[in-house]
């Protein structure tokens, strides 16, 4: 059997369990909503405005740096698997590849983008 069928089944069962639990709770739990209950919780103080506003841009910078490194590591996985067969030449090539990406990290660092200011 194709292993991915099995993974697909796992996804289905993995969803059935929490959906089932929440469904049982939904059937058994009392439902008495009122406007006070449904207000946004903010330690007893009435909330001002929506939360869907502009947020700190620094999160975006970190997400960008993450993306670069994440894609890099995906390229490194095939290299790591076949490293034993490829020998020293491939090791040196891999090291050069990592060092090039390090240049990106150093650039971000020198630009001050890793600071939480």
């Amino acid at each position, binding site marked *: 059997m194709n292993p991915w069928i099995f993974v697909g*089944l796992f996804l*289905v069962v993995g969803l059935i369990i929490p959906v089932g639990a929440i469904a049982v709770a939904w059937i058994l739990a009392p439902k008495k909503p009122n406007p006070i209950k449904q207000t*946004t919780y903010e330690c007893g103080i009435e909330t001002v405005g929506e939360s869907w506003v502009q947020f700190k841009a620094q999160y975006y910078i970190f997400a960008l740096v993450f993306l670069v490194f994440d894609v890099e590591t995906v390229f*490194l996985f095939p290299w790591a698997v076949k490293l034993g067969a490829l020998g020293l030449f491939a090791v040196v090539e891999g090291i050069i590849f990592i060092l090039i990406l390090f240049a990106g990290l150093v650039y971000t660092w020198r630009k001050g983008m890793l600071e939480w200011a």
Partner: protein
Amino acid sequence: MSFWNDPLKVAADWLMGIFTGWGMPELLAQVLIGFLGIFILVALLMVLDIALVWVERKVVARFQDRIGPNRLGPFGLIQPFADIVKLIIKEDTTPGGADKVVYNIAPMLSMMSVLILWAVVPLAPTILGVDLNIGVLYIIAAGAIGTLSIIMAGWSSNNKFALIGAFRQVAVMVSFEIPMLATLLIPTILAGSMGTSAIVEGQTIWYFLLSPLGALIFLIAAIAELGRAPFDMAEGESELVSGYNIEYSGMKFGMFYAGELLHAFTFGGFWAIMFFGGYRFFGLEKVSPFLAIAIILFKAFIGYWIIMWVKYTLMRIRIDHMLSFNWKFLTPLAFVLLMVTALMNTLLAGTPTWLYIAGMFLSNILVGWGALEIARSYSRREREKVERPKPVVETAHH
């Protein structure tokens, strides 16, 4: 071949005989058997999860010099079941301003992202959900769904605490995923495969001995990935009350809570699989598959216990410190270690075993020691910049 040597195959063959006897097509029978097997595994995991609630509450109580649950049943063992009944019959309130669809999907995804990790956990030589040849990447991909569920929960709640908690947690999770990926590459290099069962089979020498620093970095990154203290940005109880799941109640909150506990246990298991030989323990795993399952669960429990120990001992770190620690220290260190491991592994390929182990171990220690020295001298320079030299003139006392 008897049931005690290969229970999974015997049971599958038996069911196969029954189903095909009913005139079922073979593929459908296989899918049905797979479905049943997964269902049993997931059901057992949920039972384990309930036990973990008790373990966690009891252990945190002991850490804080309390007794913990002790009223229901012996040692309070029935307590988690009472908790579940309470969660089920508790009214589920949804804030008026929430994005309903996303708000309801998030807890399900949170639990699912943990459960599907067990598809690639090798429990015994013959008991393994599916032997994916890209198992390590699958672990990362499944973990990404967990990140997604946190940002969904925080965003859809339309609550400022939830949103701040979710943003911080996601920033930490994506940042610490980089050193985690780099350290996951080390077992991949050593085993020559991304499959989890191949990594376990390859560990005639535990990879902890070949890469102790890698194991340490993986543990730190895993704790950050789990969002547990000292990296509990998502909850931050003293400032964000409960963080991303603040607006959730009833079973939806229960899904986040149970998912977090099982996630911690699962990563204890992955730590054991990647660096401590998984189900291997000096040949004991060959005696019986049931013994192998007991060994891996025991190792996973030790990993889980260490994660708990760290959680209840250390204080929360500020987010800017945490991110600079990751990007300026842990990520470069993990990649330097990766390069050193790749180089040493190739250079020492033909040497005797003791030299290979000693070379790998010492290179790890050297890299770790060098990194600590650099960090120490850097922080000393920073501190001297801040601290003014003491005034020479003595001030008069009142």
